[in-house]
């Protein structure tokens, strides 16, 4: 217990308690940091008292200079490849990926629904000059239909869902997951390296998924060709090829920079 400790402990004690909670799962690195932090803060507080500060103020000044417990704990090197660490990283990655995928799909649906209104009107307006005007000579003349709403329901669909799909709820849920992860990473040990997948692994995962989405779109376009579908084949081909090329380029670039880093470090070692 420190010199300024009351019944609930002084600023240094409280700080070390916070840090102890944040360092859960960081193993020997975290334990070592906790010992060094206590040593450092005790010495810094003693210096403050020697300068004439009262014990409480001296401890508070030492803690302020040390940095927030979350900021320090986040920098603790991850323990070497234990199963627990791998699972921790996998959990964070799965959380981030799920949140991003839900946000992407839900918000894409919401945007597609919003855009379907002007696009439908534009489509109907331009189709007036075609061989089969959509609204002036409906294909089902016996049934009275709201032409705009009828065609809008087609245009607002994302692959694999119906018009009742709760896009906004799914998108909102994804956003909540992503924001919660960002906040928890700042405030808890989720931000520690033992819970953080490497940037390269995260980038590769996103690049692979992005490229696979491109492949799926191209497959859908080919399927559409056989069904003689005209309205989505071209956009699927363009978007699919673009996504595939971007995904492959990102993976190639990541591999190149990894090799470049390795070569540079070997060059530096040989130059020394």
């Amino acid at each position, binding site marked *: 217990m420190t010199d300024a400790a009351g019944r609930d402990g002084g600023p240094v004690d409280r700080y070390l308690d916070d840090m102890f909670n944040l360092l859960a799962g960081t193993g020997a690195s975290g334990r*070592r*940091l906790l010992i060094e932090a206590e040593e*450092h803060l005790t010495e810094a507080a003693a210096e403050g008292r020697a300068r004439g500060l009262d014990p409480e103020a001296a401890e508070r000044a030492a803690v302020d200079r040390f*940095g*927030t417990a979350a*900021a320090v704990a986040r920098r*603790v090197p991850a323990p070497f490849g234990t199963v627990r660490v791998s699972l921790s990283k996998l959990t964070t990655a799965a959380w981030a990926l799920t949140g991003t995928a839900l946000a992407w799909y839900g918000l894409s649906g919401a945007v597609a629904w919003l855009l379907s209104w002007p696009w439908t009107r534009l489509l109907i307006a331009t189709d007036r000059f075609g061989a089969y005007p959509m609204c002036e000579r409906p294909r089902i003349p016996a049934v009275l239909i709201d032409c705009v709403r009828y065609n809008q329901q087609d245009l607002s669909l994302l692959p694999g869902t119906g018009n009742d799909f709760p896009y906004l709820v799914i998108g909102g849920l994804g956003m909540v997951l992503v924001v919660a992860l960002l906040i928890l990473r700042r405030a808890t040990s989720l931000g520690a390296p033992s819970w953080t997948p490497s940037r390269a692994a995260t980038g590769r995962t996103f690049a692979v998924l992005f490229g696979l989405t491109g492949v799926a779109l191209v497959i859908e376009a080919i399927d559409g060709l056989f069904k003689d579908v005209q309205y989505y084949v071209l956009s699927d081909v363009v978007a699919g090829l673009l996504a595939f090329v971007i995904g492959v380029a990102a993976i190639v670039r990541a591999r190149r920079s990894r090799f470049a880093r390795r070569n540079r470090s070997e060059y530096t070692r040989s130059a*020394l």
Partner: protein
Amino acid sequence: MEIRGHLDLLLLSVLDDAGPVHGYAVITALRDRSEGAFDLPEGTVYPALQRLERAGLVASRWDETAPRRRRVYQLTDEGHRARAAKKQEWGGFVVGVQAVIGPMTAASPA
């Protein structure tokens, strides 16, 4: 002043000059030698020292002779070489930047 990205060189330099020292002394030396120019949360130095140790540039041990148990750090041979290489790299960077922005002049009175 933001020192992110340059902390490794600063720590290696302090350890190179000071010899085996504990973390608190490293931080004090950093603060004194920079005359307080760096806005550095002191606690972030300890994880940085651990990182350098993992990279093989720094070695450390517990010093049990002091009244309180302390971790003492010193440069390895590879750390000495890395410090020299990083210093040279930094020198080239400074020369390059200086050539672009021009020589430093004292601020003229308004």
